[in-house]
């Protein structure tokens, strides 16, 4: 999801009998629906996995500002501009809530930032696609934030307290994001022929990348099984993807737009939509750094970090000076 391809220790899930007393007490607490808090004992694998998962999620929120930031200066009306600006500011906030949760696990903000900037840590593949028209702002809000909500709502019940609490805050705000996106799509789909075409084109380009956000099927994966036992992953990728398609297909129909999948149809027997898998080769290629915008996104983050250096250092020096003056006066 926002943290795609997070892999755990790879050892598979231990049975309670095979665990030492600390680990067993830890797992039993999770099984009983209890929360793990920062100072509690936790297995190293749990800690490292969470740092990677929450870190990637945070990076996704931060990098996710770029495709939408692209349209702030070109929004069609002042109202749309103010709404988009508020939405992008929320994404920054979501990144900060998540960094703050990751930091409770014994990693510093700068460690995480450094690993994003060097490319060592990843962010969601979806943000490596370009936003070419205003309708893409609609498609991103409707589909990308819609997919994110599918993943984030169950994570409000995740076992790690600070992560769960960050998710609660995020989910409260995320609904605004999806609705503003759908609102743009409604306007475009009911507009002129040119606007309707633009909306359809945005759906065509964002449909499969949105399905990829959930990651490849993981029903056989031992990594996922461990993450699910730890309750840092609540559903399989396929479950969430299906749920997303089931929810989104009727919404596309309402807009009078066509989802670019000739195999998409309602299946009476299963009670779900059948649909085509995205091209997983493309997904892995984008994760490897070969998506349309990977280079641009990382360059933008690196530039922001480098250009902001004098501000970070200047404010630290100013704070030190003020402290020293105050001490001298006492």
């Amino acid at each position, binding site marked *: 999801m926002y943290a795609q391809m997070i*892999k755990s220790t790879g050892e598979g899930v231990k049975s309670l009998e095979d665990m030492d007393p600390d680990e067993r007490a830890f797992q039993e607490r999770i099984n009983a629906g209890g929360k793990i808090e*920062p100072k509690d004992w936790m297995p190293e694998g749990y800690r490292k996995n969470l740092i990677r998962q929450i870190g990637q999620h945070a990076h996704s929120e931060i990098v996710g500002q770029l495709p939408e930031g692209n349209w702030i200066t070109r929004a069609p009306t002042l109202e749309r501009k103010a709404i988009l600006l508020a939405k992008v500011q929320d994404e920054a906030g979501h990144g900060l809530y998540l960094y*703050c949760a990751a930091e409770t696990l014994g990693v510093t903000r700068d*460690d995480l930032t450094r690993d994003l900037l060097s490319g060592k840590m990843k962010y969601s593949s979806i943000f490596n696609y370009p936003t070419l028209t205003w309708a893409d702002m609609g498609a991103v809000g409707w589909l990308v934030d819609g997919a994110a909500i599918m993943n984030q709502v169950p994570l409000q019940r995740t076992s790690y307290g600070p992560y769960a609490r960050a998710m609660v805050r995020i989910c409260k705000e995320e609904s605004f994001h999806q609705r503003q996106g759908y609102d743009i799509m409604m306007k475009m789909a009911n507009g002129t022929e040119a606007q309707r075409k633009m909306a359809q084109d945005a759906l065509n380009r964002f449909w499969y990348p949105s399905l990829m956000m959930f990651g490849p099927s993981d029903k056989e994966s031992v990594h996922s099984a461990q993450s699910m036992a730890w309750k840092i992953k609540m559903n399989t990728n396929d479950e969430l993807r299906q749920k997303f398609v089931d929810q989104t297909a009727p919404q596309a129909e309402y807009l009078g737009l066509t989802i670019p999948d000739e195999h998409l149809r309602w299946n009476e027997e299963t009670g779900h939509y059948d649909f085509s898998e995205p091209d997983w080769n493309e997904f892995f290629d984008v994760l490897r750094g070969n998506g349309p915008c990977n280079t641009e996104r990382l360059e933008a983050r690196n530039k922001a970090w480098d250009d902001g250096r004098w501000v*970070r250092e200047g404010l*630290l020096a100013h704070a030190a000076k*003020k402290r020293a003056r105050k001490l001298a006066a006492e």
Partner: protein
Amino acid sequence: MSSPETSPYADTKATEHGETRKTEWPLWEVFIRGQHGLSHRHVGSLHAPDAEMAIKNARDVYTRRNEGVSIWVVEAVHIAASSPEEKGSLYEPSNDKVYRHPTFFDIPDEVGAM
């Protein structure tokens, strides 16, 4: 994509929460009083060079939708906390004083609300 063999955090030791390097802005814990006459409540943390900036940043990060009427910030390194291992010695003594709870006493219905 991180593979299980190359965990970026394999060699990191858990640092104490709030410990930062000299080049980093310190970590501040943020407490917000909601609209309804409640106490200040911990909402999260953020980085800022000093207390004044911490409050300004807290306003932007934690109260974008009227969540609060008052903000406290305190540098994370200044917070002293009990540790989970002390749970027994800290809280168990109150377990055997059930008479501290009003339900310990049976008051006949005829007495009325009490």
